[in-house]
């Protein structure tokens, strides 16, 4: 997958943000906002909620840029994690519940498409692809539903028609297998 911005460029942008350079934040927006909105939207479903997530995330990127440490992972990973956390918090606050009531059928189809699209777009030569592919189909899907769609244990259990306890231990074991496979 071709990246439109080298990771060290994002690192420099974060450092410039910490020094009060708004152009650096604008640069991050130009390079990443499209993907960040899409990532948030996979979790919160509605475009306006996704934009709200990204707006809050950019404020946090700006105010916390000085806390980024390059020894703790990539600048891109740090930025994406902020967006993911805002989106997941919005879910926990219950905003998506309203969306589900509004447009249940449509959204159900869309979100399961999103989850599988993320799988199909993954680089076939990547470690993550190989290791997810080694899991059986239901387990792979449950990991993708959680990470890509922001589904809870209960939601995954419901959709896969499995008892909650079984789902939890499945996911836990799948994650262990993934860690070992990717180590």
């Amino acid at each position, binding site marked *: 997958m071709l990246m439109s911005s080298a990771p060290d460029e994002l690192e420099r942008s974060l450092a410039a943000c910490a020094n009060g350079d708004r152009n650096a934040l604008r640069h991050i927006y130009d390079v990443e906002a499209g993907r960040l909105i899409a990532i948030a939207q996979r979790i919160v479903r509605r475009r306006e909620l996704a934009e709200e997530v990204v707006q809050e995330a950019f404020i946090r990127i700006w105010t916390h840029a000085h806390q980024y440490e390059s020894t*703790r992972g*990539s600048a891109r990973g740090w930025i*994406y994690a902020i967006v993911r956390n805002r989106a997941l918090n919005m879910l*926990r606050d219950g905003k998506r519940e309203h969306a589900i009531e509004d447009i249940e059928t449509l959204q159900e189809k869309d979100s399961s498409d999103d989850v599988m699209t993320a799988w199909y777009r993954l680089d076939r030569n990547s470690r993550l692809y190989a290791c997810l592919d080694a899991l059986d189909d239901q387990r792979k899907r449950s990991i993708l539903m959680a990470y890509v769609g922001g589904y809870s244990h209960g939601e995954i259990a419901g959709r896969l028609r499995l008892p909650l306890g079984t789902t939890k231990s499945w996911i836990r074991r799948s*994650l262990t297998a993934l860690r070992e496979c990717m180590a």
Partner: protein
Amino acid sequence: MTFDRDNIAAVADEYVLGLLEAAEVADLEAEMERNDDLKAAVAASRERFLPLDTTVEPATTDETLWQRIERALPEQSASPRRNGQGPANDNNGNGWRATAIASLAATVLLALGLAFSLMRTVEPLVVAVLLNDAGEVQAVVEDFGNENAAIRLLADIDVPADKTIQVWTLPSKEMGPVSLGLIEGIRSTRLDGPSLPLPKDNQLYEITLEQQGGSPTGRPTGPILAKGWARLPR
């Protein structure tokens, strides 16, 4: 929630996948502040799953979202710890620049001092930034006249257990240095000084290290920790 060595990688994964409950998330984020192993495990987990995000089809973007972000951005202040604490830099006007003492840091701190004073109903008559011999900012004094002054320490000053910091000003050569009071411990404090002429532009303020209870002579006897000259808020 436990963060045993065996458990850390599993908990980190569940956190990154968003599978933890709100209370568990709060626990974990607090623990991450002090547990480097957990921090590293979360970072590693993020990197493992990141390709699922970087390969997403980008949504269309427009200028209005950026404009909303830009309108909501707080000023980035000189010290990162002060983030989000209000309009610290909004007062960084020409009046302060013209009277900046020595360094850009001092200029910014003057502005902070002014902003601090502007946020209250009573304005100080003068503000003095106190520097040590190395030119580093140590404290800001605000003198309100009326026997009232306030000092904020802006650096960690090492005070031995049997010593105290005393604040002084020099209203005039004739009067000589006059004590404004002692700083309790090493905190910022309000001072109730003696009745003095109203503070003026360029009046000297300084802090010295004195014995417990303050200077026995009523004049500074210990080493000068920092000094500076008053400026009138413009």
